């Protein structure tokens, strides 16, 4: 395509995204160039037909099974989980969450927290984020890997805002962290019951508090192995 204006600008104009001098500039170029004028006409017509085609979907009756899916009966069951989880965790202010984490730190001893100056959790901008080996495990380790360097990954899923969250555990603590920019922000950290080191896929199974937190955070289903790997390959975006 040869034209005096680049095509992103041409289409931005066509879509009404330009104003002022820029819009005038493109309009003049289109008026002066029959090829551009033809292209504008072609894409305008195409856009209209495309919208009209899909508008038939919006105009059609919504299938009953979808209307039924909105029924409150299902929502009440789900809400119960959220309310239960909120009672446990959400009302706690930030300082309480941090204090809870410190308690875990004392209980857990030299595991995830306070491991010879290479703490797995650090405070950054008032939030707890994963660091060192925990950060590395959340970044790279798949659940199928089992225990690596003392850390085991549980479930991976998205929260309602679309952030990827992952549960994790080591021998003496477990928790949930969600992606926040380049960090893993801790949503909760719990001391694990003594003596649990079984081979389980759901780290949540070990601790009812963690299970409740996951329940309150998850939107949709947990990732399967392929989805987990695909998410890692996308950099957890």
């Amino acid at each position, binding site marked *: 395509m040869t034209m005096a204006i680049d095509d992103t600008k041409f289409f931005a104009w066509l879509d009404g995204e330009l104003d002022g001098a820029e819009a005038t500039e493109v309009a003049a170029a289109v008026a002066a160039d029959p090829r551009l004028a033809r292209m504008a006409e072609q894409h305008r017509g*195409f856009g209209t037909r495309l919208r009209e085609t899909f508008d038939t979907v919006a105009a059609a009756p919504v299938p009953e099974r979808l209307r039924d899916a909105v029924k409150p009966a299902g929502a009440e069951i789900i809400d119960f989980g959220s309310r239960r989880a909120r009672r446990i965790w959400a009302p706690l202010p930030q300082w309480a969450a941090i204090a809870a984490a410190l308690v875990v730190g004392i209980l857990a001893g030299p595991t995830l927290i306070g491991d010879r100056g290479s703490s797995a959790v650090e405070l950054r901008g008032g939030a707890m984020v994963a660091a060192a080996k925990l950060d590395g495990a959340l970044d790279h380790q798949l659940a199928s890997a089992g225990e690596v360097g003392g850390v085991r990954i549980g479930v991976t899923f998205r929260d309602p805002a*679309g952030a990827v969250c992952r549960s994790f555990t080591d021998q003496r603590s477990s928790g949930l962290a969600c992606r926040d920019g380049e960090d893993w922000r801790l949503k909760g950290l719990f001391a694990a019951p003594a003596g649990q080191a079984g081979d389980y896929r759901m780290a949540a199974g070990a601790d009812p508090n963690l299970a409740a937190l996951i329940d309150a955070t998850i939107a949709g289903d947990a990732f399967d192995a392929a*989805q987990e790997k695909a998410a890692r390959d996308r950099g957890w975006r």
Partner: protein
Amino acid sequence: MTPPQSATAQPFEDELTALLPRLRRFAHGLSRSPADADDLTQMTIERALRARAQWQPGTRLDSWLYTIMRNQWIDTVRSRGRRDKVEAPPEEAETLGHDPRPGIEAAFDLQRVMAAMEQLPDEQREIVALILIEGFGYREAAELLGLPIGTVSSRLVRGRTALLRLLGE
């Protein structure tokens, strides 16, 4: 008769129900078949209901739901689509035109456009669907997808140009 519901639950469900036609339209823009589109819509509804406590009243419910649908599509439908892309087309061809719902005259066109959309790379298809079909502005689409506006506009150019060619216009 519907059972009595709490006063706070009602508006969310009413608004969600009112948005179902638009959600289905967006799902058809993303999916390769009407059946997949309605599965995607159902999964989005379920995800939204489970996460309803996270929606802030006063903010746009439609954008929130579109975001959930787009993420659901990425997580489930798209990965499934990749896995069974090879064996899927013959089955699709058989179901063409068998939709008994009203609007069947338009269904063939829709199938043809959906088949063409299916050939676009995913990152172009979602932008074509949001902007050309759903009518979002460039900035709104960029915010919804978490992308720079320049990326959105260049993908839109590639997507719409390819789609026009595929549909032989």
